[in-house]
């Protein structure tokens, strides 16, 4: 087993720079989720670790070994692809055994490992089927099995669940997490789904336009987002942002309402408030004109505008509520976040 170290990792295609110097220190057995919108470079990062993309500058270390110039097969990694990339003409057993066969492993050892992986993933009954005879979830499992049999130092997951339906995705998410814990293999998991990221990762790396916006535990990202981007990306429904003017201890909303400023600042800033942190309060300073309701059963989402302005706001209420459209609701703010208006960086508390 081994950790992974990325040192100032840079990737360019011609003049276009995709990754601008990524640094990360991933501990042995840790599961890191790299998350970001499409085109942020997260898949490129993963493929560089896998050895499928050349490194423009910087170093990748797996364990103590610099792997920059090693072939993927020499890096002691296993990868699960979004479309599974199973060999369609081979049975499940052959799919799992192929890599081991190439390594010249003995027949008995291959059979032992395949059986072991099949037991872990409950694939026993399907070993002699072809991939096209399997359901999406089963194919996903085979792809994982192919990774497990290698006993690699590192697992790499490239959006492995995005081809599954919502219910299966939740189930497989838990299974991947359990499996990773059980095997204790250092893992990098790439996804654009923030719920997947929050639930799977020991730590999250939020990537935006090839730059690490924040790298920390899910709760850290939720409670202390380092920038407007992270704040908006992590958490669902997304955080409300309002432009404010900070005067002394007060943040003044566009409609003149005054809130206590969560950080020291002066002049223009961006105030962030999560929908779930606004509580109904008849005397609260935040007035929202209700427009649309979304009843989720366990919660009710209220969409509206800050009274007297065009700024959209979302508030999450517990349980079933039914405020009428057009009504004004008042809220008391709980936890607030303040960001620099220009750079979007979090302002110190």
């Amino acid at each position: 087993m081994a950790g992974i170290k990325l040192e100032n990792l840079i990737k360019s295609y011609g003049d276009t720079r995709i990754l601008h110097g990524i640094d990360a220190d991933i501990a042995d057995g840790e599961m890191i989720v790299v998350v970001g919108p499409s085109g942020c470079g997260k898949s490129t990062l993963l493929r560089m670790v896998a050895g499928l993309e050349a490194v423009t500058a910087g170093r990748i270390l797996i364990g103590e070994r610099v792997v920059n110039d090693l072939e993927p097969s020499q890096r002691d990694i296993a990868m699960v692809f979004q479309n599974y990339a199973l060999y369609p003409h081979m049975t499940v057993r052959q799919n799992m055994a192929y890599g081991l066969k190439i390594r010249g492993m003995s027949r008995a050892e291959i059979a032992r490992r395949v059986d072991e992986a099949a037991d872990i993933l409950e694939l026993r009954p399907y070993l002699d089927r072809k991939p096209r005879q399997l359901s999406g979830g089963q194919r996903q499992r085979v792809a994982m099995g192919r990774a497990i049999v290698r006993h690699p130092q590192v697992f790499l997951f490239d959006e492995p669940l995005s081809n599954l339906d919502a219910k299966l995705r939740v189930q497989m998410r838990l299974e991947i997490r359990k499996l990773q814990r059980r095997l204790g293999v250092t893992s990098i998991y790439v996804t654009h789904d923030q719920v997947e990221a929050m639930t799977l990762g020991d730590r999250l790396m939020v990537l935006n336009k090839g730059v690490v916006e924040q790298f920390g535990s899910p709760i850290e990202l939720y409670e202390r987002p380092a920038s407007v981007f992270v704040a908006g990306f992590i958490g669902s429904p997304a955080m409300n942002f309002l432009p404010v003017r900070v005067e002394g201890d007060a943040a003044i909303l566009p409609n003149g309402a005054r809130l206590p400023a969560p950080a020291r600042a002066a002049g223009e800033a961006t105030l962030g408030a999560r929908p779930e942190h606004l509580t109904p309060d008849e005397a609260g300073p935040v007035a929202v004109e209700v427009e649309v309701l979304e009843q989720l059963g366990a919660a009710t989402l209220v969409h509206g505008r800050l009274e007297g302005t065009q700024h959209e706001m979302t508030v999450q209420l517990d349980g079933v509520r039914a405020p009428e459209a057009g009504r004004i609701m008042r809220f008391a703010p709980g936890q607030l976040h303040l960001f620099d208006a220009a750079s979007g960086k979090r302002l110190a508390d």
Partner: protein
Amino acid sequence: MIENRPWLNLFAHLALILGVAIVALPIWITFVAASHEAARMMQAPIPMLPGGHFWENLRATLFGEGLSGAETAPVWRMLLNSLVMALGIAAGKIAISIISAFAIVYFKFPFRMAFFWMIFITLMLPVEVRILPTYEVVSDLGLLNSYWGLTVPLIASATATFMFRQVFLTIPDEMLESARIDGAGPLRFFWDILLPLSRTNIAALFVILFIYGWNQYLWPLLITTDRDMSTVMISIKQMLEAAEQSPQWNIIMMTALLAMLPPVAVVIAMQKLFVKGLTETDK
């Protein structure tokens, strides 16, 4: 059509029967002619029912002198020549083009696209256009009257290269990447993944190319002067012209019948794979 009208059904069947009759009549006459004595076909009206000399004619055609008075090889020899040529062309074309498609799709090398276009442009140069220079080359190499001379100049194929390129492009990149992570080198990937995945396409191409090779006329006519090397297509034509007396229809038609069999056999044997290869898109 969903309606069930007896007259319409009758009409449909009549139309189909007429169509089948038009297509099958020449073949039937061939068969009938091959089963009579030589003289019988010269008398009017020509017979429409098979006679009793089929096996006799078959033996005479396959192993005997063939046409009396003409200097042709026994037909089994010509069938063998045609078979070797057709198989050689089909196998050669497939082998060459699958390898070149592999190089063009999966390797990055200087002038890759230039090479691709060079191959592609040869589509405009079928054998008939380059027949004289090709003859020159083959004769300089001393390949006249040999299986090599019959097959090699027809082997280069832009169509097949292009087809395999398209097939390879439909195989997702992840397949290659997955194989790389599994530790498969380029040749391993080719043998273990690409070849099995192109199996149906190879079969479809084989059918087309076998028939193409079998039906070759101009090129074998040009480079085979030795009667032991001539192919069955040429000899049918020669049989018609060769004899000074009236054509011996029983032998000629038997030869034609024999010449039809291998392509039919190939199509029937590979029908399933052939259709799959042309229609299957799911990789």
